[in-house]
C-alpha cells in the first residue's frame, strides 16, 4: 500500500521545524515514530501534502527530572521508557504501562509524545497522563504554552494542539516521597489495543491518601479521568471498603461502547474489577 504523494522535510533544528509548521499550517503533519501516522497514510485515511520529520532534531530525546517534574522529550521512544531507571524507580504507573504498548518492534519507533498527540481513545499513555496529572508543552514560532493533559485530549483522534505547534515534551509532576501506581490492561493478544485499560496512582502520607489518580482507556470517546473516584480516595486510608467505593465510581465514569472487544456492560465491569485490583496492588507496593 502506497501513501499519496507528499513533500518531505527533515529539519535539522527545532527552529526550522517550527518555521515549516508556521508556513504550512494544516497542510503539514509532524512525523515522529510514524507508527500511527504511516499506517493511516498507507490506508489513505490521512494524505498530508507535507511531512515534517522531526527525527533528525537533536535534544528531543531526553528523559529527566527537572524543576519538580519529569520531562519526556518528543523523540523519547517507548523502548527508552521501558528501560529508563528514573521511570522504573519513580513513575510506577508509566513503568507498568510501557511494556504493554503495542509490541517490542513497534516500541522501538513509537514515541510517548506522539501517542498523546495522536489522541487515540484506545491509546494507553493518555490514561496514564490523566492519572498522573501530566501536561504537554507546545511550542510554535509565537512561543510556548503548557497544556494540562485534560485540556489537551479533546476527542477521538483530536487534541487541542494547533497546526503550527510542535509538542516538544510531556511533563509529569514529581510523585513525592510516598507513592504507588500501576497500569492494568485487558488485551486480546500482544500488540492489541486495550479492551479496557486502567491507570492508577496514589500518593500517601503516613497512610493517608494525599493524591489519587485514575485514568481509563478504551471506554469512551477519549481517555477518561475518573474524578469522582479520585476524590473519594483523597483524605482516606486505603481499605477494602474505600477501594470498592472508588472502583464503583470509576465504573460509573466509564462510557464504553459494545464492539468486537466486548459489550458495554462487560467493559464497565472490567473497569470496576481493574480499578479495585490496581488500587490493591498499589496499596501493597508503596514506594517510600
Amino acid at each position, binding site marked *: 500500500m502506497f501513501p499519496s504523494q507528499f513533500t518531505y522535510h527533515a529539519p535539522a533544528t527545532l527552529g526550522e521545524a517550527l518555521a515549516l509548521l508556521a508556513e504550512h499550517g494544516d497542510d503539514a503533519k509532524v512525523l515522529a515514530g510514524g507508527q500511527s501516522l*504511516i499506517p493511516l497514510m498507507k490506508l489513505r485515511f490521512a494524505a498530508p501534502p507535507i511531512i515534517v520529520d522531526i527525527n533528525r532534531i537533536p535534544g528531543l530525546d531526553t528523559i529527566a527530572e527537572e524543576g519538580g517534574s519529569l520531562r519526556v522529550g518528543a523523540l523519547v521512544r517507548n523502548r527508552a521508557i521501558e528501560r529508563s531507571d528514573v521511570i522504573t524507580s519513580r513513575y510506577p504507573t508509566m513503568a507498568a504501562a510501557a511494556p504493554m504498548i503495542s509490541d517490542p518492534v513497534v516500541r522501538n519507533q513509537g514515541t510517548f509524545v506522539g501517542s498523546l498527540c495522536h489522541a487515540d481513545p484506545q491509546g494507553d499513555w493518555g490514561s496514564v497522563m490523566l492519572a498522573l496529572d501530566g501536561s504537554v508543552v507546545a511550542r510554535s514560532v509565537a512561543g510556548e504554552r503548557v497544556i494540562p493533559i485534560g485540556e489537551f485530549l479533546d476527542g477521538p483522534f483530536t487534541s487541542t494542539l494547533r497546526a503550527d505547534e510542535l509538542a516538544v515534551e510531556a511533563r509529569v509532576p514529581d510523585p513525592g516521597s510516598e507513592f504507588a501506581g500501576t497500569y492494568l490492561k485487558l488485551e486480546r493478544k500482544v500488540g492489541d489495543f486495550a479492551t479496557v485499560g486502567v491507570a492508577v496512582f496514589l500518593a500517601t502520607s503516613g497512610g493517608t491518601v494525599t493524591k489519587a489518580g485514575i485514568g481509563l482507556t478504551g471506554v469512551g470517546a477519549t481517555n477518561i479521568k475518573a474524578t469522582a473516584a479520585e476524590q473519594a480516595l483523597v483524605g482516606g486510608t486505603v481499605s477494602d471498603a474505600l477501594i470498592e467505593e472508588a472502583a464503583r465510581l470509576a465504573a460509573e465514569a466509564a462510557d464504553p461502547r459494545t464492539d468486537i472487544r466486548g459489550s458495554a456492560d462487560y467493559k464497565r465491569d472490567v473497569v470496576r474489577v481493574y480499578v479495585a485490583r490496581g488500587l490493591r496492588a498499589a496499596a501493597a507496593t508503596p514506594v517510600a
Partner: protein
Amino acid sequence: MNITVTVNGSARTSEVEPRMLLVHYIREVLGLRGAHVGCDTTSCGVCTVLLDGLPVKSCTMFAVQADGRSIMTVEGMATNGQLHPVQAAFHSEHGLQCGFCTPGMMLVAKAFLEENPAPSEEEIRWAISGNLCRCTGYQNIVKAVQAAARNMSEVSK
C-alpha cells in the same frame, strides 16, 4: 530524493520518492528479497530489518528516513559464508517451516541476544511477540533462540 544508506555494510545511493516505504526500497530498489511483506499493517513483523542495530517494521517507515543510517537485512547476517549463530541455531533446531517469518525472527533474535545474552524462556517469548509465525507454534523458534544464546556465549568465552 537522493538517499545514501549503508546496507549490510556497504553504502548504497538511490533516487527515491519520499512516499516509498523502506520495505519496497529494500526489495525492489536494492533487490534484497529477504525482507518480506505480509500484513502490510505493522502487525506481523515479517518485514523487520535492523536500523542502526534495532528492529523496525520496514513497511512502516519511509526509505527517506533511513538516509545516512545503517540497515541490516537477513542477507547481511552471515559473514564470509559462515552462518550467524542465530541462523545456525534456527537451522539445527528446526526453527522454521515455510520460512516466511524467519528473516524477521532471526534479526529480532540477534538484536535481542546482543542486549540480553542469557535470557529466560519468558523473556524470549516477549522479545519475539511482535513477529508472527503461522507454522511452527513458536516452540522451535524459542529453542533456536535458546541454542543461539548458548552458542554465542561459548564463542565469547
